[in-house]
């Protein structure tokens, strides 16, 4: 009798233990793999590339149960804050998702990410697969600290062909043509440009392209190099003035500063025909393909390069945007985690199936020699266009908020917001930003 009671108790205890460990598995996220304690950890972004990344990690985990990866996703803005705080507290993930530039440099300066140069030397195949211009963005002081992990994301000028046909307009090739289109669309009750101004970074795309077209890539290169008074370049003032002229003319949709780009409300204005054009990153093609499949499929989505500015020095083929997103490997990770991480970088990412799922999602992977694959895609027009744009660009400037140090980037976005609201003049902007140089 007693023996039986004891056995029952033992069964109850082990059942509790099993359910506890099951619960622990459940919290390991959608990957659902039985992650061991020493699994490499990876934080990705929600949005267009989420299912692609999820699939490549799930594939990797089922093929490599001994070096598995535990994957979690975060929204863009929340991620940027969380990852930095976590890394600073020694709780960061093995894979640090990033954009290169000044933010990557701050990780390098703090000794938080590993130098991957030796890994690249041992695995020449890895280095060779990338478009060289993209690979450069993970290099700091001649050493590679971050490797591209997804698709090339230049900023593109999208337009709604339906709406253009309605007013009998053509895509603008010069700034003057663009300005001339504004009253035309306004008269038809259509906002010329959609803009997710509350998120602030979409504002930046206007400044980046205008400075690029007016003054060429050197203007921002000087700013990023922390040269004294680099913001005083006349190209910056002229670009800011042009932005305010466009605001004055009513170029942006009513209430643009209360529209958040994170909720894709800015794209919705374009495909619902409430606005004619939007200047946004290459990644919004992926989300429009999902949210407005008919609009994209029926070829109503037009896209073109940013207009030229008369007298401008910049090559019209130059682009701005994000060359790619990147993986850095945390220097605080254990040897086992690093081994799994580098293994994934070598064989898990940009496998044939990963490249194909990126293309299927409407994105252009940052690898060489994929022309035929792109041409076979239902989105071949857009993908080939973006691939060519990135491959042939004499200069590809990284988004400024990522290229600069976080302190400068934050001040720049806040002040640019003020420019769009006409709360400050271009001269005030330049003076404020000059004061942040070196911070």
């Amino acid at each position, binding site marked *: 009798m007693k023996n039986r009671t004891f056995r029952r108790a033992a069964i109850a205890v082990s059942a509790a233990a099993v359910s506890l460990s099951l619960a622990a598995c459940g919290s390991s996220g959608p990957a659902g793999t039985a992650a061991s304690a020493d699994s490499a950890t990876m934080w990705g972004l929600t949005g267009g590339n989420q299912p692609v990344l999820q699939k490549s990690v799930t594939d990797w985990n089922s093929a490599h149960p001994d070096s598995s990866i535990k994957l979690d996703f975060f929204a863009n803005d929340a991620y940027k804050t969380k990852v930095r705080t976590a890394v600073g507290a020694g709780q960061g993930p093995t894979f640090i998702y990033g954009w290169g530039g000044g933010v990557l440099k701050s990780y390098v300066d703090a000794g938080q990410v590993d130098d991957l140069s030796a890994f690249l030397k041992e695995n020449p195949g890895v280095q060779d697969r990338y478009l060289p211009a993209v690979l450069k963005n993970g290099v700091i002081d001649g050493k590679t600290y971050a490797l591209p992990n997804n698709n090339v994301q230049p900023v593109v000028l999208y337009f709604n062909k339906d709406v253009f046909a309605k007013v009998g307009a053509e895509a603008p090739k010069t700034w003057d043509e663009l300005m001339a289109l504004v009253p035309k669309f306004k008269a038809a009750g259509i906002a010329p440009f959609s803009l997710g101004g*509350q998120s602030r970074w979409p504002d930046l795309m206007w400044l980046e392209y205008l400075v690029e077209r007016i003054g060429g890539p050197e203007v921002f290169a000087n700013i990023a190099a922390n040269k004294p008074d680099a913001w005083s370049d006349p190209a910056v003032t002229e670009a800011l003035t042009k932005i305010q002229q466009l605001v004055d003319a009513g170029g942006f949709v009513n*209430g643009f500063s209360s529209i958040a780009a994170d909720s894709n409300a800015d794209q919705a204005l374009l495909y619902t025909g409430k606005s004619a054009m939007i200047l946004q990153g290459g990644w919004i093609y992926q989300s429009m393909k999902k949210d407005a499949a008919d609009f994209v499929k029926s070829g109503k989505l037009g896209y073109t390069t940013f207009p030229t500015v008369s007298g401008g020095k910049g090559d019209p083929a130059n682009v701005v945007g994000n060359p790619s997103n990147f993986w850095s490997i945390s220097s605080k990770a254990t040897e086992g985690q690093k081994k799994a991480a580098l293994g994934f970088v070598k064989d898990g990412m940009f496998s044939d199936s990963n490249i194909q799922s990126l293309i299927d999602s409407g994105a252009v992977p940052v690898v060489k020699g994929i022309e035929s694959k792109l041409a076979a895609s239902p989105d071949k027009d857009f993908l080939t266009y973006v691939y060519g744009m990135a491959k042939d660009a004499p200069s590809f400037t990284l988004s400024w908020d990522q290229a600069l140090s976080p302190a400068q980037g934050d001040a720049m976005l806040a002040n640019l917001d003020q420019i769009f609201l006409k709360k400050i003049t271009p001269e005030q902007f330049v003076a404020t930003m000059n004061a942040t140089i070196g911070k």
Partner: protein
Amino acid sequence: MSTTSGSSRRPLQPGPSGWLAAPALAFFLLFAIIPLIGVLFLSFTSWDGLGEIKLDGLSSWTTVLTDPVTGNALLVTAKIMFFSFIVQAPISLLLGVFTAAGQKYRAALAVLYFVPLLLSSAAVAIAFKALLDPNFGLGAGLGLPFLAQDWLGDSDLVLFVVVFVIAWQFVPFHTLIYQGGVRQIPASLYEAAQIDGAGRVQQFFNITLPQLKYTIITSSTLMVVGSLAYFDLVFVLTGGGPGYATRLLPLHMYLTGFKANDMGAASALGVILVVIGLALALLLQRLGGKNRNASQLEGA
């Protein structure tokens, strides 16, 4: 506890033993005082959140105190504090008095009023953000052009929108406090007033309001000091924008620390916030007079 019986000559203790406060004090020390000292220390350093923490003298303080954005944040905080109080105090007082009575329909209404209290600030902010969207929100959906204003994008309008949403969320809480306060007022006072021939309005001004004095002080303290902490709602609703129009002090502190990664300056802002909060709380307590802790109940 000492008692009057026996040989003890010690005077009566006015209340329970001080040791009862020990657990609370221990937690306060651990989670308030020690972090506060940490923040005070950090305000004299420069730290980007990643690298080494370097002692940097007063540089963070000079940055913060000379930055016009700090002054603007203080002004925005003061405005929101003032307008929130002006809007919330009368509404919640009246609602509290109204719902204190016993009829069933008042109980049903009270339940409706309290619904916003059940929602998290983030949910409230996301819902209002969607409703106020000029292109896809309530105005556009119902075809009412006057509702399709640029509520959150107009630098002058946005402050009042924020005040409105804050009031929507917090009026129920203060109504609850007032309701409790009113229910504590002895019925005999009203009976006596009725015998003397006082009407409802006279009863309100001569009995209810004076009897609620300490409830008003409690509620106002929570309202005013609480408005120093309206962070989550504003962060989700406007992100401090457009421009700096709704960048409250706590939000400015957060953005300085976690967006611009200047932990030194953010800590200095945190210290300023604590000092202002304490000063306001003390000031409001002063208004209560010396006898503020005495009970107003008959015979208590």
